[in-house]
């Protein structure tokens, strides 16, 4: 008796009897008659677009220099009244230097989802940010941490370095490694399930703050 694998493949091949036997997949034409990017301005203009689009989907956007970052993060955590903050194993050393009185939990792989559910905030870096869609992509490298880190706490602060900003989805995909687990984030958690109208705040972090660093 044929197993399901062989049966499915046999049915697929039988269904495709009209396809010439010598046609290779690449022989079938695919015209890519579309733009590689829609935003074609200077890096500063692309960064402005990223800020606009993030804000349009209710992310809170901040912009500062690298030197101002520790002060800004301290202020944001204080404004959120965060007593403890989870961070990935390799968050750059000085980012939380000014956050006095905040307990920092560095994830060494042992933080559980239940523990993270009781953490006030999480601070991470990112891999890429897409200006046209207002999207931040995390690839779970040591400065971003495991996927659950940026998921379970209700308040996520994500820092974007200028060289990580690209204009388009196509440019982002070329920079990303598909073998890594990726999370594309465009604003805080939301739903359109009640009368097809968008409401922010369901299961993911209900507050997303994006910090765009200037050159």
């Amino acid at each position, binding site marked *: 008796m044929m197993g399901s694998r062989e049966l499915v493949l046999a049915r697929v091949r039988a269904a*495709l009897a009209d396809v010439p036997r010598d046609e290779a997949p690449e022989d079938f034409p695919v015209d890519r*008659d579309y733009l590689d990017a829609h935003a074609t301005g200077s890096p500063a203009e692309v960064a402005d677009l990223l800020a606009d689009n993030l804000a349009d989907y209710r992310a809170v956007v901040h912009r500062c220099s690298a030197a101002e970052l520790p002060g800004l993060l301290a202020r944001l955590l204080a404004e959120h009244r965060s007593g403890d903050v989870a961070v990935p194993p390799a968050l750059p050393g000085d980012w939380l230097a000014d956050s006095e009185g905040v307990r920092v939990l560095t994830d060494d792989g042992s933080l559980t989802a239940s523990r993270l559910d009781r953490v006030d905030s999480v601070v991470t870096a990112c891999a890429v940010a897409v200006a046209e869609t207002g999207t931040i992509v995390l690839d779970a490298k040591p400065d971003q941490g495991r*996927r659950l880190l940026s998921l379970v706490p209700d308040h996520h602060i994500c820092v974007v370095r200028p060289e990580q900003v690209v204009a388009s*989805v196509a440019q982002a995909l070329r920079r990303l490694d598909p*073998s890594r687990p990726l999370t594309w984030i*465009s604003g805080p*958690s*939301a739903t359109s399930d009640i009368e097809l109208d968008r409401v922010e705040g*369901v299961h993911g972090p209900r507050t997303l703050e994006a910090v765009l660093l200037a050159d």
Partner: protein
Amino acid sequence: MTAVHLGMPAFPSFPEAAEAATTDAQLRRNLRNATHTIRDKRARAVAELSDWAGLRAAAAAIKNRTLRHLDHYLLQLEEAVTKAGGRVHWAIDAADANRIVAELVKATGETHVVKVKSMATQEIGLNEALAAEGITAYETDLAELIVQLGDDRPSHILVPAIHRNRSEIREIFVRAMGRWGRAAPDGLTDRPADLAEAARLHLREKFLSAKVAVSGANFMVAETGTLVVVESEGNGRMCLTLPETLISVVGIEKIVPTWQDLEVYLQLLPRSSTAERMNPYTSTWTGTAEGDGPREFHLVLLDNGRTGALADQVGRQALRCIRCSACLNVCPVYERAGGHAYGSAYPGPIGAILTPQLRGITSALDASLPYASSLCGACYEVCPVAIDIPEVLVHLRERVAETGKGHPAERTAMRAARWVLEDPARLARAQRLATRARRFRPRHLPGPAAAWTDTREVPRIPEESFRDWWRRTQGGGPRAGGGPAGKGGR
């Protein structure tokens, strides 16, 4: 061959189910309100991209290439997923898939699973099959939760509870949440934000304790073995990240060949679906990742009638569908009949061509679905992968007529139409004949067509056919011969 299961109890036929739905004023108000809200937003989101037509054409071509070489890409995918630490299973039909998933869950020793919204598992009736094996499946998408708590059936691809308004949802939450877990908060209002908050609290304990998750996928990348789930709420991320075992049930047509191909679909899908530049969350994963997320990953590749659709050279294009639901939101028939009338997990225009192809045209219901359309063509206009739904509808009507399930008058008309349409000269003669006989146009049609004209005007026949008008006004122009612009201008 066993009957293909599409996860919904069968109604006698679309017209009978639709007749009941159209008398439900509340349902019609809810549907009209929701579909009109999203329609305008979608148009604006699409208008932002000047190259939409190019993206749409590429999306159709990539899927066509995939479908024409599906065996090649399935094997490539299987190899890549396996190499990345996943296990691949093949399911010929719903029963096969349900058995595989139930066995995988049992092997973990768990009796509960959390679920990401998935059309494939809806289609195969997985929740019911798992329940029969003593396994409870918790839906975690807000709309699926509303359907599950309300002991209801889904009526829309993207928003399965679209037929419910906010006050009905509040009632369902207050009544049923306590039976499934954490009860609804006291004094719950019908504000959408409060309803979303109630769902967050209700499901959080389930996410934190879940050991097994079941998902579908929007895309599978053959060259890398990567799966993609596109979502909004974060319930998908919870299910894909927190449990120890992840089981994904995915239709064999969900493949795209390369990682680069995602640049097309990740632009088309959110704008067509929720009218967003990008949906809040997209997760991609390739097999298992050391120390991050599930330790075990199973991919169940599902046929369940898809190879039947693949064998039909006209109907095959329905397998390009990326389940955005734009066609539902613009369809005048869907807006009035509602999703339940289609008697399948796939309602609306896409359901009218997908369901009869997956299930076959053996029942009266499935034979009636190709007629659940006025052929206005709005569905084709908005389809991001350019599925010519009217073309497939007409093709399926012919197939229904051939099986003898169609109306006798229609069978005759179909045969006559095919005879006329097959030959351009015959068509031209027929049109000129109709034009000359214009003044004899009856107010009522004779014979079996009389009932149709009881409530409708017989269309006016124009003085001149389009083909004749075209020849008269464009015939001597620079673009004669129908070639592309510029070709004849040198």
